[in-house]
């Protein structure tokens, strides 16, 4: 399962557009509404992983276009720090990723989704081969 | 279709005909040559361009387009590396360094002037780009200096080691006119 936190502005807009355009994507991706990418902190990421998510993604507006100025950048920094931490603890840094999308273009978020699926699959197959 | 009937055929921009190596070499050195806005500040800065065919702006343009003629022509070798263009470019492109990158690439392809080859040979032989001669040895003596300076000129073994390790030039393929 992949938990995708999507901001209320561009990310959800883009997900809605993708729906309207009947674009298809991985059913494992489950969207959680948040007001802004900035809302998502380490606690949300860890909790999702602890409760069985294979990976977590956060999707915000394009950089420079955050509706609250720079919540997406703040979270990008958080995600980078989390990735570093995961790496140090011996986990796969791809367990958490940050993306952006544009409300008017469904394919932006679908592209993000495809990347999430690919990364998650790669991660899962690595785990299997490690065992 | 052959374009040979025209002495100066129009350049056709066709996919796959760009010399990607030029663009890559510049990128590797940190240039985004596409950021050049063709303002001509570099050409206007260039003393060489007043006397030679070098038009720095055009060099930048051709490089951005991956036009390999820029490597074959002697234009890039007319730059005296005065850094005027480099210091003045409003897009902050390190123009002189870009020319050096292009020269490196041209050299790798064998476009090296015979006089330049000679300088390299002299360096290998004497340790200096400008070697010492008898007359100067005499002058040095008159001035109260040792006849041979304590440089590589005095240490032949080390000279050889250096010559073997550095500046192995590409063969004389397309010798620059």
């Amino acid at each position, binding site marked *: *399962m992949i*938990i995708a936190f999507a901001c209320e502005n561009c990310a*959800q*807009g883009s*997900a*809605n557009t*993708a*729906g*309207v355009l*009947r*674009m*298809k994507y991985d*059913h494992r991706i*489950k*969207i*959680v*509404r*948040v*007001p*802004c990418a*900035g*809302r*998502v*902190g*380490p*606690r*949300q990421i860890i*909790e*999702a992983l602890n*409760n*069985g*998510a294979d990976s977590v993604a956060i999707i915000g507006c394009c950089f420079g276009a955050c*509706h*609250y*100025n720079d*919540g997406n950048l*703040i*979270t990008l920094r*958080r995600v980078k720090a989390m990735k570093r931490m995961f790496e140090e603890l011996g986990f796969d840094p791809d367990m958490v990723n940050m993306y952006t999308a544009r409300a008017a273009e469904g394919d932006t978020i679908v592209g993000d989704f495809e990347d999430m699926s690919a990364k998650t699959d790669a991660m899962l197959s690595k785990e299997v081969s490690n065992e | 279709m052959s374009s040979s009937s025209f002495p100066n055929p129009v350049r056709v921009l066709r996919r796959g005909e760009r010399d990607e190596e030029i663009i890559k070499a510049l990128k590797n050195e940190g240039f985004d040559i596409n950021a050049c*806005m063709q*303002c*001509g*500040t*570099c*050409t*206007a*800065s*260039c003393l060489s*361009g*007043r006397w030679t065919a070098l*038009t720095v*702006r*055009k060099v930048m343009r051709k490089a951005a387009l991956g036009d390999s003629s820029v490597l074959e022509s002697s234009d890039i070798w007319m730059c005296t590396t005065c850094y*005027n*263009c480099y210091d*003045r*470019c*409003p*897009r*902050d492109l390190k123009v002189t360094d870009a020319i050096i990158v292009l020269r490196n690439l041209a050299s790798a392809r064998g476009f090296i002037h015979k006089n330049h080859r000679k300088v390299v040979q002299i360096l290998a032989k004497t340790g200096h780009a400008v070697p010492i001669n008898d007359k100067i040895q005499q002058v040095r003596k008159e001035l109260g200096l040792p006849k041979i300076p304590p440089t590589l000129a005095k240490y032949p073994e080390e000279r050889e080691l250096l010559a073997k390790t550095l500046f192995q030039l590409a063969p004389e393929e397309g010798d620059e006119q």
Partner: protein
Amino acid sequence: MFVCHCGENIAGKLDVEEVAEFAAGLPNVEFSTDNLFMCSKQGVELLKEAVRRHKLNRTVVASCSVEQHWPTFARAVEEMGLNPHMHEQVNIREWVSWVTNDWDNATEKAKSAVAAGVKMAALKEPIETQKLDVVKKVMVIGAGVAGLRAAMDLAELGIPVVLVEKEPSIGGHMTMLNKTFPTDECPMCTLSPLLNGVANHPDIEILTLSEVSKVEGSVGNFVVEVTTKPRYVHDNCTSCGRCSEVCPVEFPNEWDMGFGMRKAIYKPYPQAIPSTFTRDKKHCIECGLCEIVCPVQAVDFSMKKEKREFNVGAIVVATGYEQYDPVEITAYHYDHPNIITQLELERMLAPTTLTKGKILRPSDGKVPESVVIIQCVGSRNDQVGNAYCTGVCCMYALKNAGIIKEHLPNTDVYICYIDIRAPGLYYEEYYKKAQEKGIIFIRGRPSNIEPDPYEEKLTVFVEDTFTGEPVEIEADMVILSAGMIAPKGFGKLGGKLGLLRAKEGFAKEYHIKMGPMRSSREGVLLAGTIQGPRDITKTVAHAGAAASAAAQILVKGFLEKRLDTAIVDKDLCIKCLACSTVCNPGAIDVDVDGYAFVNDTACKSCGTCAGACPTGAIQIRNFRDAQLKEEVIGLLEYNRLVGAAQ
């Protein structure tokens, strides 16, 4: 729980009945059904009826997106006496049925979404809206054409205005211009009605020689402290000018960019408003002659600096621009007397200055035979940190080149440019007209200007990029089209106002398309060039938009604020203020005990603070950590939830 078919949109892709049945088994679910079109009149009635019959206190509709029909159902439950925020919307159309290929997968995914929605609904909290009284008064900072326009528009709506200007007179840069493109009108003629209108408006209070020294409060209710420097002349001054006549001190007038002179007691220019004279303490030698000669005893050396507080509902920032100082580009040798900027030329062309409006070479007063205008000085230049195009200098260069040609038909006028930027109605036409005047256009940016060692001559080095040849132009005068930059002191004012600034120094707009006249802070609006360079046309339009945005806040007399804002749990707060550093609107203050404290009016409910808080002390309503956690668990473990409570 209501699961919608949306005709075939949902029901054609997944098993709606199975989802509704699954929902019925979830903890806390009183009632679950499916329906063909939930948003239809019958669908809404069904919902209302269920609320009544089953005494539901929360509802979940699994249908389309929040944006599409949350308001429909929220209104319905509100009509039933519930808080609208007790309705939860689950999107199984755009996010499930339309994007999933496989029937079973889609059904499963819909179930998980429904489970998450139900869990979330259980934790939903009512959100109140607050009515905030607003002060029906606006402060406009900066009295250039933007500030004047905004002040006038607001005053005409009946909203009182305090207009704060740091200089002794109002009008800003526009009053310094000689003519304005694209009509070549006299700017004072076009501006005067506005200047006088503002000066005489009963609802506008003008404070000159004044700056904002402190800002407190938030939208609807700011408290602004304004510090006014003494003018040393009282308002009863009749502007007779006798003091100025007798004053022995004379030196270059700043307003004339050094092309005119003024006394230590002065008015910057004859039509200056207010017309009261000003004594410039720095240059005054305190001879006292002015005091003696003044027929109305207006001169008063004992005047002191004053501070006043104003209560306003909104603030319009219109502090304009500054001309880029070309001294930084040393290759252009701006320190040379015959190399001047366009703004200096505008003053030289004014009839009141030293040259009496004639174009003369500053060093020796000779009529120039060759004038070179250089574009993009300090703009489009990464080296000096201004990558942007000012967008105005091409136009004023065309204007001034034309004026030089008119004054001196035998003089060669060159414009060296990278691109001529003249977009919009009348502007390209203006360019064409300039071309027809015989101005010589050279496409190339000059590398350097070299003063001749022997003669009063300048050499401009440039490439004519069209021919690809390096060119030298011999010039008597060079005029630099220096770009527009943010006023230097703006950082301090911006800090007091809590505004974000673009890296170029201008005030950052809320949204470049949808709110170019809003700032990063609610209740603070931007007018004119402080948001970025532009010409007068666009400045005036922008100022009008700022005025109307300010009025929007104030005309109703109150603000409605949804309180789904951040809230701090003092028991958890460790006073680290990590939250406050990430809060862009600056909504987090510190209370007397050092705890973070959210200003509800300013909070935009983004939740960035909640993500930053190490202890989870700060939360936003309806997106609390606990709520998000439940939603995530719902999505991931929906199958284990069925019947768990039973």
